């Protein structure tokens, strides 16, 4: 996957949470199985000055966080946006696996049409925000800005 709208940061070491100097552009990792939806979010967030990395499903997301992927080193994003309903590994499973290894990266979960049980579970696992499809992209961008500390 390629970085979107970002400068070539190949020489930089990945930022580790808690280290002194965060990079100027927040890195957002988006996991969504629908290509059009993924592209839409990537474009919108790219316009708001985020570096975007895309995963096609939950399994790929975990792989990128743990091992990196062919041609890409291990990724340490500032924020993860993940769809809940994906083949292979759901967004909730991703979230619970991250929490189990004490990974504090904020996570935004995207569900469909306000599934109460999913909302509760998301809150319990410590999701920063939960969005119901269809949602306003501006609201998502605001949430990303809040979580990454951009003005």
């Amino acid at each position, binding site marked *: 996957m390629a970085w979107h709208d970002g400068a070539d940061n190949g020489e930089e070491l990945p930022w580790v949470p808690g280290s002194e100097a965060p990079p100027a552009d927040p890195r957002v990792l988006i996991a969504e*199985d*629908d*290509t*059009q*939806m993924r592209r*839409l*979010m990537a*474009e*919108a967030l790219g*316009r708001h000055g985020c570096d975007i990395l895309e995963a096609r499903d939950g399994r790929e997301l975990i792989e990128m966080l743990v091992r990196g992927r062919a041609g890409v080193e291990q990724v340490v994003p500032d924020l993860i946006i993940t769809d809940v*309903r994906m*083949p292979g590994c759901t967004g909730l499973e991703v979230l619970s696996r991250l929490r189990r290894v004490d990974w504090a990266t904020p996570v935004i979960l995207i569900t*469909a*049409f306000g*599934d109460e049980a999913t909302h509760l579970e998301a809150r319990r696992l410590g999701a920063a925000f939960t969005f*119901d*499809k*269809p*949602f*306003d*992209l*501006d609201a998502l961008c605001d949430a990303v800005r809040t979580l990454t500390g951009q003005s």
Partner: protein
Amino acid sequence: MRSSPSPTDRGLPFPVKLARKITLALVLLAVAVMAGLQTFQVERELARSAIDMQHDHRLLGHTLAGSIGKAWQLAGESEALTLLNQANRFQEQVRLRWVWIDGGPGSGFAPLLPPALLASLRAGHDGSVVDASDDPDVLRSYTPVLLGRRLGAIEITEALTEQQLHVRTTVVGTAIATATIAIFFLLAAMALGRRLVGRPVEQLMTFAHRIGEGDLTARVPLRGGRGDELTTLAAAMNRMGEQLEETRSRLATETAGRLSTLEHLRHADRLTTVGKLASGVAHELGTPLNVVMGRAKMIASGEAEGDEVGECARIISQQAQHMTAIIRQLLDFARRRTPHRAPEDVAQLVSRTLGLLKPMATKHGVTLAQEVPSGLSLDVDGGQLQQVLTNLVMNGIQAMRRSGTLRVSAQHTRAAPPADVGGPEAEWVRLDVEDEGEGIAPEVLPHIFEPFFTTKDVGEGTGLGLSVSYGLVRDHGGWIAVRSQPGHGSCFSIYLPPGADSCQAAS
């Protein structure tokens, strides 16, 4: 009687035979014991009378020996022998005779005696022998007498007529007594056997037959007064009957309870399905709606510039089409029409379907193969079966990332329907759609027929194809089974009830 095994025929021979066998054995045993006892008795009596006779002979022999010895000394040999002959003349019972033991000159009576007896006579002892060569048997006793230097003996011969008569009488008497007792015994045993064994066993068997035929209210009318094993058995069997009846009524209650629980579960299951369907619709429509909203907003706000505007509009249109397809399939799913059945040639239907899908298969590098016997006809809704086949073949083609062959075959087979269809094992027509694709993961396999379950990208499938197909095949009274080997391919089998024509074609 053997030719027609009615219940009574089956019931009777056993106890009667058994009683007869037991009786016969007892009678034979009694006869044997009586015969043995009588034989022993007769032999003992014979032995005693022989001893008595020998005793008499010895007495007679010694008495005569004295007289003969004296006559010999006084009057010579001829006088002595005359004395002996005179004794013969006065009575008939015993015959007296003179014999020379050494068989020397003038004896004329060299006795052909057993050597042991001869030796005993030479030693001066008397002895006897039974001669069976005469009829009737005779007992010969010898008393040795020494005349001068020569050893002779008085031979006393007596017929054993009386003893033989006695034996014969005893044997006949015993036989008559034994026969009388045996007949009496036989009659008594048969009557008792029938009363004590035959009838109770017959009743027990009638009971067993009735229980076997499902009549659990049957009881054995044997009262416990006699206290024998059969009564105990009857009581045990009655208890068994009561318990069976109780168990059956309990089972009936439990089954009724279970059925009502099952009905509740089915209702709950329906509600769950509705819930799943709703959340599936929400998810399926939520995503394209979101894309449409986002792209529309980009155009409206002027964020999208130049070519991007066109691209956004194209995406909006594509997403709208996708949503339309979802809604149409959902409606198909909800408003499934009843199949309009008509005899349909399976080979023609399959080749029609594969013909339509050939361009898609070629694009994916997939060869379509058909192995359907000609003349196989089914009573189905052709359009619906074609829809099902199209779904399965398209799934197969999409599952094949590499080039390969997708095979559609049909055959008659015996199979037991799954639980949701129900029914015994029977004859079915099976249509197999076999691909060489990547297969289905075992954890996914149980869910593939659920509505909105899909492993494809959102644009590629609606998650309704398989569940619609399953519903259509169920409407035809059949079902779809699937087996898959991850990495090697999957095989979807459509089971349909064979039409009347195809049965004839098969036989």
